[in-house]
């Protein structure tokens, strides 16, 4: 990096950018303490830590904007083993998280239209359309996304990411590294773990070549340790929702999970979740529930509906219903113990082959049943997400089994995680009303 580049980076990111973001956070914290911004009658105010989350996310994208002045940039899928990239000092960007951010900021229609205009079908994943639309048009609510020097796609969340990243590879002319994780229909086969490990080794070689530096074992162990700590803290936090009333809802979890997804392997992420845990424990000690009059507790299956988080939280909150657990948010913590800091490569292979989306539909049903017990739940909402077939296929049978075997109401709610055009508000409200009647009955 040139001296001018270094200076420009320090000036924009560390001096002006961080300062401005910290000031914005302090102001937001002050406003939150006064409680003047919060209108809801049925929901507790957002966590005090929320401005910190916003600061982390904003800082992450700010660093991305100037990343090329300092280091290489990798775009990765959300379930990819990123520890070696972090250890090689890559700036790591998650297009899915960027997609989710666009979803919450309600700019997806515009970006998806860019992709659709270029010929990408509306039947394709809405994250992919959002991301491809952003890549084609250069539009993004975060200012600017850095061009990737390397693309890393891991199929442990879906096959879609491979097709999507092949499009990105062609668009950016960047090398695409594939980590193919054989689907676990019943059990993890040793040859599958070895296959994943071999690919991680191959991926490291390519990443080293692109970065122009060698991976240091000690640094990798350190990053793996921090990843594991953040994932463990995250799991501890969401397990606090076993408490009645639940201190936070899945809607809080959806927002607060951003750092554990896109900032794994960083000390500041560990600090953040340690602080969040303290706040959640304080809420429990004070008897604060996220729904002011919690009467029923639900499980959420599948991705969030990013553009309707507040709507759903309030709709259900008005009826004293809290959604306290989710297979989706749980997925980012449940594998923490598999992260092996002593043998990071083997540990990575074992961890990254085993997320919920890479396991059979029966396994997910078993997970839901255990969560129903553990979190004392009264019902389940299965978001039938037309943009996520691997998560959604099997839900019809899962719902039927939950009704029959657990004797609890289960609702299949049709929508799309990012594309608001697939959300029929009237229909959703009718389905929710009928479901609430079943819960009350």
């Amino acid at each position, binding site marked *: 990096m040139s001296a001018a580049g270094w200076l420009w980076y320090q000036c924009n990111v560390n001096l002006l950018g961080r300062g401005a973001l910290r000031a914005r956070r302090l102001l937001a914290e002050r406003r939150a303490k006064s409680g003047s911004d919060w209108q809801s009658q049925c929901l507790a105010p957002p966590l005090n830590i929320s401005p910190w989350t916003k600061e982390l996310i904003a800082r992450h994208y700010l660093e991305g904007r100037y990343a090329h002045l300092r280091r290489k940039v990798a775009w990765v899928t959300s379930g990819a083993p990123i520890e070696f990239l972090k250890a090689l000092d890559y700036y790591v960007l998650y297009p899915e998280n960027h997609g989710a951010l666009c979803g919450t900021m309600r700019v997806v229609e515009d970006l998806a239209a860019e992709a659709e205009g270029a010929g990408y079908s509306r039947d394709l994943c809405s994250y992919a359309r959002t991301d491809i639309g952003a890549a084609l048009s250069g539009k993004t609510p975060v200012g600017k996304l850095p061009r990737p020097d390397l693309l890393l796609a891991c199929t442990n969340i879906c*096959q*879609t990411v491979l097709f999507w990243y092949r499009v990105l590879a062609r668009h950016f002319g960047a090398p695409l590294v594939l980590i193919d994780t054989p*689907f676990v229909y019943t059990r993890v086969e040793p040859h*599958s773990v070895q*296959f994943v490990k071999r690919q991680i080794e191959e991926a490291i070689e390519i990443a080293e070549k692109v970065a122009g530096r060698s991976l240091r074992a000690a640094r990798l162990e350190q990053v793996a340790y921090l990843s594991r700590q953040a994932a463990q803290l995250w799991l501890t936090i969401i397990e606090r929702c076993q408490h009645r009333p639940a201190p936070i809802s899945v809607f809080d979890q959806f927002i607060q999970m951003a750092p554990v997804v896109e900032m794994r392997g960083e000390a500041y992420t560990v600090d953040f979740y340690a602080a969040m845990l303290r706040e959640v424990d304080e809420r429990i000690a004070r008897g604060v529930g996220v729904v002011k009059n919690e009467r029923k507790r639900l499980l959420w299956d599948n991705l969030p509906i990013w553009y309707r988080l507040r709507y759903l939280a309030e709709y259900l909150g008005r009826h004293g219903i809290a959604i306290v657990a989710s297979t989706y948010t749980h997925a980012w913590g449940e594998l923490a113990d598999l992260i092996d800091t002593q043998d990071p490569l083997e540990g990575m292979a074992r961890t990254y082959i085993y997320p919920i989306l890479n396991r059979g539909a*029966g396994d997910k049903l078993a997970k839901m049943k255990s969560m129903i017990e553990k979190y004392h739940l009264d019902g389940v909402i299965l978001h*039938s997400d*037309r943009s996520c*077939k691997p998560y959604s296929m*099997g839900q019809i049978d899962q719902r039927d089994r939950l009704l029959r075997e657990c004797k609890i109401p289960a609702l299949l709610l049709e929508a799309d995680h990012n594309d608001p055009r697939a959300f029929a508000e009237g229909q959703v409200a009718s389905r929710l009303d009928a479901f609430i009647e079943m819960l009350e009955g």
Partner: protein
Amino acid sequence: MRDTRICMRSFEIRTDEMGGSLEGIEIPRRMEVIREYRQGGGSVAAVFPIHYPRPLLRAFGFLPVEVWGPPRAGGNWGEAHVQPYVCSIVRNALSFLGSGGLDAVDLLLVPHACDSLQGLGSILLDFVSPRQPTLTLYLPRGGRESDVAFLADELRAIYRRLEVIAGRSPSEKELMACIRRDEEADRLLSELHRQRLRLPLNDASFYRLARSREYLPAEKFCHIAQEALALADGDGRPGAPIILSGIVPEPMRLFEAIEQMGGFTAADDLACCGRRLYPAGSSQDPFRRMAQRIVHAPPDPTRGSPIGERVEHLLSLARATQARGVIFYEVKFCEPELFDLPLLRQALRQAGIPSLTLEVDIGDELSQAALTLLAAFFEMIG
């Protein structure tokens, strides 16, 4: 023209009604083949799309019979298990199974071709629990040495499962014999594709012949293919040559429509046909050899082939056949296909080759809208 019957699936289609013939060559019906094979002491495996090791199944005495939907699956059993945004191949497969269409088979094999087929395998194993044993096969998504090694290991794992199911352990020699027979069948299938314009067959007849590979034992297919190749003495066909790309040409009435509009299929990039013209393997290890054949097959998005390879493949097909256009005939909701389309079409456009996309549900007849688009396309390419 003689009234030759070419029989596919569980129904008959008179070739003369389709405007073509396959002189003197009888292609047995699928149900007849199954019955005859079982009478000979063999068992039958229903195999879902797309890539799988035929010789491995044959070595254990299982005749692989492929299930691409099928288009006319009865009932709506599939809808009771999968959402409407899942492709009709998977939905129909479930309906076909639920309506007893697979009662005559002894084994189910679900290769992992995409998220939807992954879901199908998972639903079968975890919820439907058919009376037949259900095996799954994960196909690696790259062309690296590690992919070949993994697939060979995966095939060894299937071998061990089949040992338990079939109660026998074919020797390496027996397995190699099955592989060599299969390689010969695929060599002849490739030859049929190369010689297709010299055969006295229209598209519908050609694809009935080529797709009989989906259920005929390799040795029978070799016999029929050799008979067909002996008829190759023509010098091309009149009309506008096109390339057909996609998953499966269902409903097959598509070919009739293409012919009526003055075109013909000069080559294909179909998952059920052209993307399965497997080369012979080189390894003397039977598992590696079977893996090599699948990993080194023509480009296919479901095996993770880069878009550039697909572009090159389509352009080389177009050059070899002087095709005037490419029709992408897609099954609705098929993500592996839909993702590549814009860049493939862009590359074709840059090469001066027009293209058309048609999306279908394999259970439906060709819509009027699709026919209109086809007509306009053939008007354009002349």
